């Protein structure tokens, strides 16, 4: 058992709190799971397994379902219902409803007041809290690590394990400290930090690790900025990314529907204050970034590691170190229709997508709305604004943000994953270029043949106005963030 005086990392503390059986030579550790989030796409086969074996869901009271991936984001009909026209998606959603009903799991169905992207609603409702273990059949579960929870994506077999036993078999991962020192300049935001981190370490750089983001630039971020960063940990290969909880965290959690109340909240905060990594705690590796030097980032290729400063030039495949890297970059540039040494600033785009579990929260929408207020989306551009949840949508409408977007000529849509995963009717046409605030620029991710540039909500809004890729710092916005 651990020596009391050995300094521990945030990750180790949360891990140790949840170990039911420690890891041995022969077996992985058995971890207790505090919260299991489920959605329609990665759960059906797990529920089938439970039925085949005659098992029940062990803790429906620690499980929550929502519809998000295959749901349309098109307007409601005159009955207030969002019609699902895709027969296969409709059948999948019906099956999900039946699964949650049969097994007693609370579920937010399409269009209801708390429905939304699974990684937006967890924190929004106060389910996500510091020190918890949270899993979901979705790789962006890393988002919840922003609260100092250990949160990671699992496969469908593991969804079955957690449904049936509330536990998971896991080997203890390594830790990597991601230090972001300094202060962000005007017009540079959380998304730019994480794109810079991934550009630096590569898409496999964090494999086998849990990240802990630290340093003054991370401390200075809002919870929503921290969620954006933790969300994309998986794009650097890490299953989880965490930020130590602090006053910003406690304030954000306080008062949310499912957060502890009154004396229970005070007691919880007392515990949460013990979670940050101890002075002298050791990490297996470290990466350091200086926020002072950061400018808005954009990707040029077909994985999130292929990113660069927005005023940069597309790299030359011939200058890559290995044959494999050369081939990968060549393939990426061919797919993207880009030339080596080409500048991306000024590149025309067809679509701007503001949404996804990375950047669809109220502060993301506020940021873009500030840029778009009184402006017009270029005629050549289709801009989609997709709030992360029905609650975000409601809040944005209360603040009049929807009116700003609509007046600018953008589409104001219902909540869901939308064009981040393009399995719900929202997609690019082959060959189209998009600036997207989502998390993946993989080939075909936003529609077969579609070409994605990942960037921040500010860059997305500036690009929408000009119709071509634009450095948001060149557009005047008071208090740009």
């Amino acid at each position: 058992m651990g020596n009391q005086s050995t300094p521990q990392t945030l990750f180790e503390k949360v891990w140790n709190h949840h170990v039911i059986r420690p890891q041995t030579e022969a077996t992985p550790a058995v971890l207790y799971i505090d919260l299991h989030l489920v959605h329609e796409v990665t759960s059906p086969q797990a529920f089938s397994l439970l039925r085949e074996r005659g098992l029940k869901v062990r803790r429906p009271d620690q499980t929550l379902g929502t519809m998000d991936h295959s749901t349309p984001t098109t307007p409601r009909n005159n009955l207030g219902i969002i019609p699902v026209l895709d027969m296969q998606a409709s059948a999948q959603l019906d099956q999900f409803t039946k699964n949650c009903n049969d097994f007693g799991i609370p579920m937010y169905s399409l269009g209801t007041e708390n429905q939304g992207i699974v990684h937006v609603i967890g924190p929004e409702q106060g389910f996500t809290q510091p020190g918890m273990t949270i899993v979901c059949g979705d790789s962006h579960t890393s988002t919840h690590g922003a609260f100092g929870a250990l949160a990671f994506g699992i496969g469908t077999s593991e969804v079955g394990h957690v449904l049936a036993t509330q536990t998971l078999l896991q080997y203890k991962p390594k830790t990597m400290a991601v230090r972001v020192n300094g202060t962000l300049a005007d017009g540079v935001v959380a998304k730019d930090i994480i794109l810079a981190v991934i550009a630096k370490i590569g898409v496999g750089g964090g494999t086998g690790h849990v990240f802990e983001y630290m340093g003054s630039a991370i401390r200075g971020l809002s919870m929503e900025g921290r969620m954006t960063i933790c969300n994309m940990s998986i794009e650097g290969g890490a299953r989880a990314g965490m930020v130590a909880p602090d006053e910003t965290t406690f304030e954000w959690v306080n008062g949310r529907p499912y957060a502890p109340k009154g004396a229970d909240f005070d007691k919880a905060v007392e515990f949460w204050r013990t979670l940050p990594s101890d002075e002298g705690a050791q990490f297996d590796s470290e990466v350091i970034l200086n926020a002072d030097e950061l400018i808005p980032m954009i990707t040029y290729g077909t994985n999130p590691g292929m990113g660069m400063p927005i005023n940069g030039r597309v790299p030359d495949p011939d200058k890559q170190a290995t044959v494999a890297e050369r081939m990968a970059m060549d393939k990426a540039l061919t797919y993207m229709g880009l030339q080596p040494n080409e500048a991306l600033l000024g590149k025309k785009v067809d679509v701007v997508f503001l949404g996804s579990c990375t950047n669809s929260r109220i502060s993301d929408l506020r940021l873009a709305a500030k840029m778009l207020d009184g402006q017009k989306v270029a005629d050549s551009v289709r801009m989609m604004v997709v709030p992360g949840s029905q609650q975000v949508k409601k809040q944005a409408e209360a603040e009049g943000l929807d009116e700003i977007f609509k007046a600018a000529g953008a589409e104001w849509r219902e909540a869901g994953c939308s064009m981040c995963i393009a399995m719900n009717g929202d997609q690019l046409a082959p060959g189209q270029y998009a600036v997207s605030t989502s998390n993946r620029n993989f080939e075909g991710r936003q529609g077969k043949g579609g070409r994605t540039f990942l960037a921040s909500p500010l860059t997305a809004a500036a690009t929408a106005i000009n119709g071509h890729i634009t450095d948001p710092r060149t557009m005047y916005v008071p208090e740009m963030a």
Partner: protein
Amino acid sequence: MEKINKISGRIAPLAINDIDTDQIIPARFLKTTNKQGLGQQCFFDWRYEADGSDKADFILNKPEYQDASVLIAGNNFGCGSSREHAPWALMGMGWQAVVSTEFADIFRSNSLKNGLLPIIVDEETHRQLMSLAEEDPTTEVSINLEDQHLILPDGRKVEFPIDGFSKYCLLNGVDQLGYLLGLEDEVASYEASHDKRVETTA
């Protein structure tokens, strides 16, 4: 689950780094509620023309690789989404093992739970296998899970890592859920001694 110990088969090359699970099985095919038919959709956008015919220049479509069952893939195979549809699709297409220098964590974990062997080898062995696969599509390798050996055509044995628990489950054809279900008392005792953190049904 079927027991797995020895596999032997022809190898096929897919010399691309960072192949993500969206390439292995595009998201639009995830609207299914079972595992059937995913093999036909594996590598769909690389594999088929818009009219549904095979793309002639996609290497796995070449006639000489049709009997292969061991895929030699570039570094960091299976990155991106957690979809377990990726190993289901690969197995549906006929692959029994994938050899690479590194696998993404979730893909690797998902594969091991389904009997698709993720075989990690050093760069030199990887380079050799890739060349062999490209030069002679009749090249066969064998895999001995119990000994953790990948056996090359010249008889050389290359050891590969696999965690002891996954290995035990694969060799004995048992799945990991059975083990967890046997821990009910320990789980109940953990719950009794820890405050519940959140109540979704409240």
